């Protein structure tokens, strides 16, 4: 799996080079969607598909989000890596039917802090997975999803 990711990365780099050289091939560049990872039914499966196995818990991976979401349809999440050479940041939601919400491939110029908004079907752990220097690290945080409004 790790090898597959490495190859993928090389392909990206290759395409990046092409793009930088003026060869813009958008359709080809988007043929990378990781179906296996996005359709994983358990956290273990998702991590395996991402090549992460059992990532090390790290204080250098941070999740900035409110403890309680007023609505599960939009939960703002900022995922931060303080680890050098961060290549990839992924956001996973333990109790969502599609656990992997997003993964971001970064370049050396990209500061490893991404903000996105995710759906959460219910109160759940949110996991941020970081790949840095070829190794995987993770942090998790419980976010409560509340019932709101008049409920009618």
């Amino acid at each position, binding site marked *: 799996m790790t090898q597959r990711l490495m190859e993928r990365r090389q392909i*990206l780099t290759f395409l*990046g080079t092409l*793009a*930088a050289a003026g060869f813009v091939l*958008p359709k080809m*560049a*988007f043929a*990378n*969607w*990781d179906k296996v990872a*996005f359709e994983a039914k358990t956290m273990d499966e998702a991590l395996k598909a991402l090549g992460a196995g059992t990532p090390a818990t790290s204080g250098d991976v941070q999740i900035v989000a409110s403890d309680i979401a007023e609505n599960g*349809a*939009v*939960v*703002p999440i900022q995922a931060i890596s303080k680890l050098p050479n961060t290549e990839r940041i992924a956001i996973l*939601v333990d109790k*969502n*039917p*599609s*656990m*992997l*919400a*997003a*993964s*971001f*491939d*970064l*370049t050396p*110029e*990209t*500061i490893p*802090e*991404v*903000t*996105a*908004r*995710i*759906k*959460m079907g219910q109160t759940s752990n949110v996991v941020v997975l970081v790949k840095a220097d070829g190794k995987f690290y993770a942090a998790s945080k419980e976010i409560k999803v509340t019932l709101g409004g008049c409920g009618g």
Partner: protein
Amino acid sequence: MGSPMKIRASVKDGVTEIKVLMGHEMETGQRKDANGAVIPAWFINEVTAKLDGKTVMQAQWGPSISKNPYLAFKVKGGKAGDKVSVTWVDNKGDTRTDEAAAT
């Protein structure tokens, strides 16, 4: 084609902050309509951002990203006037690219 994105890019202290709003249903494929029929999944699954022509972010998304997605991130370097371009592709193969100049 989708509706136009809103892209904001601002340069401060040698860092370009890029914020993008995209108009998209991001349908999960889990919901049912009033007649009980499943609404098919329809979501952006790939996003690429470039600063001054160079790819700085390539994202893969699943249906758990919220409707009308918002994405914010920062890149070292950049200057006012640099072109920021963002492209999304959805699972139906629809795609859209929009651009903005950094300020």
